């Protein structure tokens, strides 16, 4: 059975949510069997989930049963839902029971708090290897989907549980959404070792969130940079959480100062701090920085996860073998997904990547083989003939003004810096001018109400005017 699910005792607890529901491994297996008979074999379904036990049961149950869920946010904007629905025409849609009445489809069954409905659309022919689909962006509902295969699930589960040294005693706290690749991979890797996933949809500022961590004795916390900004503001360091021994971070670069703060806190309090790197195109985690290097090599993504390989290529596609030389980072491993889907017909496509992907990230490695991401390929401008990294500029600004929100975009004519704080307008410009030694007119600072971001906290540059 997929993910070793048949290996664990029937009454071993697979997941607990903050609403007090519980799911055993026996129930997961039974539900997987049931899901096989709820729909014709290999049915395409839209699965709109919340972070609760039912969301996990329906996701894992259907993947095991051979149905192919597109996992989406239950609170996805209606317009975005409609565009996806029209494009992919799923024969089945499953949503939380509480919102089922909003849909005009024929109800099939309700269990674990979710209602399965039949839309009337015909069966969708799909590739045999296709296991599940995820949106490329959690919140914008882009019609571009990532096509995963069964082998990706197994590989991600094995790799991740290996380097985190997960065991059945682990009780990871899951705040990341189930429809987000890193959240889903937490479920995969922990089910693979028979652990108990503690899943919640509570706000981290909610008293009950902290009650849940304490009462359920969470052993690890996985977050994106933004989650740690919240923990930082919540005075996490002053909380007494003896069971929590592992903090892991992914989902983009974390500001150096904050990264160090957590690394040092963990070192001083007998906890592990592990920064990771990944992409949804590779079933989440691709690289990790062992905690022994958390401080010394802060900002590094470390090396490839087990059973995988990172490499660099130069502009001409030749492999780079000398340390401290920048190139595009490439990845080889069984967790590399099959490719994208942009239409219903694309679900028939086979593996287009064959375990290899160019990440689109510019990086170098040091003498120990630890990788450092410099920026996104293409996130560069040429101002007065000088190559200027937009990500680097953001780091300069955030380094000088900790906590300041900013986003840099632009053309080779001019860089645009978006800020939300009017009072820093001139200071930011001065800082860039003095650090980059460019004329002030190369920069234009614009003030906006909010920097557009996805739910993982990554800036949505496409939403900002670049000239």
């Amino acid at each position, binding site marked *: 059975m997929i993910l070793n699910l048949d290996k664990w005792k029937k009454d071993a607890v697979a997941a607990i949510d903050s609403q007090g529901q519980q799911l055993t491994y026996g129930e997961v297996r039974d539900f997987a069997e049931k899901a096989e008979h709820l729909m014709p074999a290999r049915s395409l379904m839209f699965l709109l989930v919340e972070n609760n036990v039912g969301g996990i049961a329906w996701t894992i149950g259907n993947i095991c049963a051979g149905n192919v869920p597109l996992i989406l946010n239950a609170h996805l904007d209606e317009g975005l839902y409609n565009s996806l629905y029209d494009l992919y025409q799923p024969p089945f849609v499953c949503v939380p029971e509480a919102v089922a009445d909003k849909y005009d489809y024929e109800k099939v069954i309700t269990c674990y708090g979710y209602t399965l409905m039949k839309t009337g659309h015909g069966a969708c022919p799909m590739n045999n290897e296709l296991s599940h689909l995820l949106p490329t962006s959690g919140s914008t509902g882009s019609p571009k989907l990532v096509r995963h295969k069964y082998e990706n699930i197994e590989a991600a589960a094995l790799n991740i549980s290996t380097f985190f040294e997960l065991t059945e005693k682990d009780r990871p706290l899951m705040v990341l959404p189930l429809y987000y690749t890193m959240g889903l991979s937490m479920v995969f890797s922990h089910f693979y070792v028979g652990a108990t996933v503690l899943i919640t949809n509570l706000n981290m*500022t909610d*008293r009950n969130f*902290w009650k849940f961590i304490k009462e359920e004795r969470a052993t690890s916390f996985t977050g994106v940079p933004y989650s740690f900004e919240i923990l930082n503001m*919540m005075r996490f360091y*002053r909380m007494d959480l003896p069971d929590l021994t592992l903090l892991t971070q992914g989902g983009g670069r974390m500001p150096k100062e904050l990264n160090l703060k957590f690394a040092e806190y963990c070192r001083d309090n007998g906890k592990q701090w592990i920064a990771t790197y990944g992409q949804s195109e590779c079933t989440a985690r691709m690289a990790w920085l062992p905690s022994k290097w958390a401080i010394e090599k802060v900002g590094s993504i470390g090396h490839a996860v087990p059973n995988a390989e990172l490499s660099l290529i130069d502009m001409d596609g030749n492999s780079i073998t000398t340390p401290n030389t920048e190139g595009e980072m490439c990845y080889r491993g069984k967790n590399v997904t099959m490719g994208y889907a942009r239409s219903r017909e694309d679900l028939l496509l086979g593996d287009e990547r064959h375990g290899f992907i160019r990440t689109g990230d510019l990086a170098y490695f040091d003498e120990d083989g630890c990788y450092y991401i410099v920026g996104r390929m293409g996130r560069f401008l040429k101002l007065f003939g000088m190559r200027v990294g937009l990500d680097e500029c953001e780091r300069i600004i955030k380094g000088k003004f900790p906590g300041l929100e900013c986003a840099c975009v632009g053309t080779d004519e001019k860089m645009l810096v978006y800020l939300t704080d009017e009072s820093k307008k001139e200071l930011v410009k001065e800082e860039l001018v003095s650090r980059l030694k460019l004329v002030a007119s190369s920069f234009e600072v614009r003030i906006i109400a909010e920097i557009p971001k996805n739910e993982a906290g990554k800036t949505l540059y496409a939403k900002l005017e670049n000239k």
Partner: protein
Amino acid sequence: MENLEKYNNAFVEVFGAKVEDLNDNYGKDTVEEWDSVHQLSLIAQFEETFDIMFDPEDIMEMTSYAKGKEILAKYDVTF
């Protein structure tokens, strides 16, 4: 500036609220935008304005206009 004025200003800054809309019912249950980001921004405003540092417990409790005043009283900020 009086404490009340400073207190109100924080809500104006964080929520873009109008002073005349602020009352004891103003809070997490009545204000749609009130999420963890807004709550923490409010905390940051208060800490800066009143030069204090909240305990985690109090940060979690900061869920309405009325509660905020109660909590600030513990830090000797009175209205």
